[in-house]
């Protein structure tokens, strides 16, 4: 058996299916994109090569591209700074909720189960300036001065959108942390208490450090979701007003399929992939810390 597994041909044959799949499903399309990115193809008929003009334009002459990227980073920052700490807090609270544990777990996970189309359209109604629940509630509370055109005002729209995306992803982040907490052995809690740790020390010094492998997973998932954000934007504002709420995924779609600039759209997608790769590498480096065995 050992002899078989160390045979070079065996290894080749074992790796071949996966490798072929990867080559044809990932590498080949990306190379095709790189190629189409150098053309002025409109999706129909003939096209000419334009060299790297498209790539140059994306990087140096396209404010919407950078705006989209900036929006994605804003979303990422908001997710990491708000959504995840709150999710960890709620996960801890849920594990201590006793009989209501299951109920709360279900309630918080509901948004993640409902279709994004439904929740997005629901929030569009909630945010509606004249019939939306939000403005109505503000008015009832005597806070009419805070009323906004939540999705139509260029300076507010992006924050409304970020809030909705965070709300949609909250249940999932919570579930990850909740699962992480379940994986921490109960005796560590007891040991910490015997050593005289208070509630706060217990969590800041013992539980959260032990949770870090799960945090790593959750952060990586958050980064990818934020970068490729598309559905919610498409359904709620389609990047408007102006391009103030544009995200890369949606911008790419709009360029390729609404403006019929397939060549240019491909160039955006290639640069998008490169940016994602860079961020992934940086993240892997930054998060490469072992917590040890427990």
């Amino acid at each position, binding site marked *: *058996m050992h002899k*078989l597994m160390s045979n070079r041909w*065996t290894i080749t*044959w*074992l790796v*071949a*299916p996966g490798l*072929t*799949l990867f080559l*044809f*499903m990932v590498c080949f*399309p990306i190379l095709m994109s790189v190629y189409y990115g150098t053309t002025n193809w*409109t*999706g*129909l*008929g003939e096209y000419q090569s334009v060299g790297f003009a498209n790539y140059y334009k994306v990087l140096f002459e396209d404010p919407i591209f950078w705006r989209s990227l900036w929006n994605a980073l804003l979303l990422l920052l908001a997710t990491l700074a708000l959504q995840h700490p709150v999710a960890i807090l709620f996960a801890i609270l849920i594990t201590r909720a006793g009989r209501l544990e299951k109920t709360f777990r279900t309630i918080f996970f509901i948004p993640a189960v409902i279709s994004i189309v439904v929740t997005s359209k629901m929030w*569009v109604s909630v945010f*509606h*300036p*004249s*019939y939306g629940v939000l403005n109505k509630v503000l008015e009832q509370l005597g806070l009419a001065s805070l009323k906004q*055109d939540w*999705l*139509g005002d*260029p300076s507010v729209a992006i924050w409304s959108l970020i809030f909705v995306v965070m709300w949609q992803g909250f249940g999932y982040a919570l579930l990850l942390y909740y699962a992480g907490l379940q994986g921490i052995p109960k005796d560590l809690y007891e040991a910490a208490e015997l050593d005289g740790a208070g509630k706060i020390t217990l969590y800041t010094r013992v539980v959260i450090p032990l949770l870090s492998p799960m945090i790593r997973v959750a952060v990586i998932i958050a980064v990818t979701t934020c970068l490729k954000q598309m559905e919610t934007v498409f359904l*709620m*504002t*389609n990047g*408007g*007003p*102006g*391009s*103030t709420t544009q995200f890369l995924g949606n911008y790419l779609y*709009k360029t390729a*399929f*609404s*403006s*019929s*600039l397939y060549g240019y759209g491909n160039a955006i997608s290639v640069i998008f992939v490169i940016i994602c790769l860079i961020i992934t590498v940086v993240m892997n480096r930054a998060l490469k810390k072992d917590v040890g065995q427990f």
Partner: protein
Amino acid sequence: MKRAMILVMMFALTGMLLAACGGSNGGAPANQPPQTNKEDGTNSKPEGEQVKLKFFSALADRSNGPGKIEQNLIDAYMKENPNVKIEVEALQDEPYKAKMKVYASSNDIPDIVQSWGQASFIKPLIDAGLMLELNEADFASSKFVPGATDGFSQDGKLYGLPRNTDFFVIYYNKKLFEDHGVKVPETTQELKAAAEAFRKAGINPIASNGMEGWSLPIWFEYVAQRHNGDFNQMDAVLNGEAAFSGNADFLAAATEMQEFAVIKGLADGFITADYGTSRNMFGQGQAAMFLMGNWEAGLATDENFPEEFRNNVGAIPYPASDKGKTTDVAAWFGGGYSVAKNSKHPEEAVKFLQYFFAPENWAKQLWQTGSGTPAQNFDEFLTGSESELQKQLIGIFSSITSSSGTPVQDNGTDEFKTKVMEAHQNLLSQLITPEAFLKELDAAVALIK
């Protein structure tokens, strides 16, 4: 023995995976959206001289309005010609156009497709040699209105047939105007005054589908015409004979349009409203006016809206100014049909279109059900029992003395269209000044020169 077993299994596995790969690469083109509304694909080959025609429509609602008439005509034709089976696929406008591109790029266009006689849609298809040339004489008995087929023609050859005449009007809710003592606008100043009055009364003045954006440039054509008195001036700019920037009339028009946003003359949230939302807002009596095309004659009969609204909806032409009259209307010939060049049964497809466009079929039924205005002569089908709204619409239609032709954004490529619509959205979101707006339009025009 063990080794042999493992090797055999490995080969089998590899084979399976490769087969799966091959299937997904060689079959349907990548990125093809899932197919909808497709009738069950029976694989059994029809016998004898059975003919199967694929029909791709952008009338997604098959149980109301024009979509229902289209479907009824198809069903009736299949009944009369049992050897012909017509398979219908229908999608909404934008998904339709997206899927049409997929069909076109894989050279697999259905036999009969909906088309628009506008450069942005039909020109690339004609240039790529994908559309069948039609013989105008085949359709002489259909009595198309003069000029109706112009948009579908290129170099003197006909590639499609128009289904409707489209023109832009202001729908208004009479009751809201009466209740708040607002005068129905006859001049552009009165329109602005009406918008201000409704805003003051806490009612949304004008509903519009700003998120999709295509109605805004048509509105701008009106505003500009009321300033310069001539629709042709915009065409001159599109032909490269003039520019938007530096033209005092266009600047005044852009300023006037932005004014509507400043005084909140458009419905709340109009910039994130799609077609359904804006239409619903008006239909539920939440907005006093609705800037839309004549194809909404069905507002007066739509059971989804309260009876009070249905009895009170009316249409007026866009108000006049000292330079432009109410009879100068933004009008054009809209959607229609074309036949694919690679159709296996071109003569059958043409035969169906002849049946479809026979005067007593499409033209008569479209008019008499209040679903729109045909692009064919339909005087003989006036029943005298048209709804008030229909009468107002036909009044506007028959009074036209000058018309805008193809909507400005449909005169070029898709990129041009997107840029033009975005410029209007930016203007009305007050993100750019009227001067910058004109510059953006000029930049868009530069793309199609």
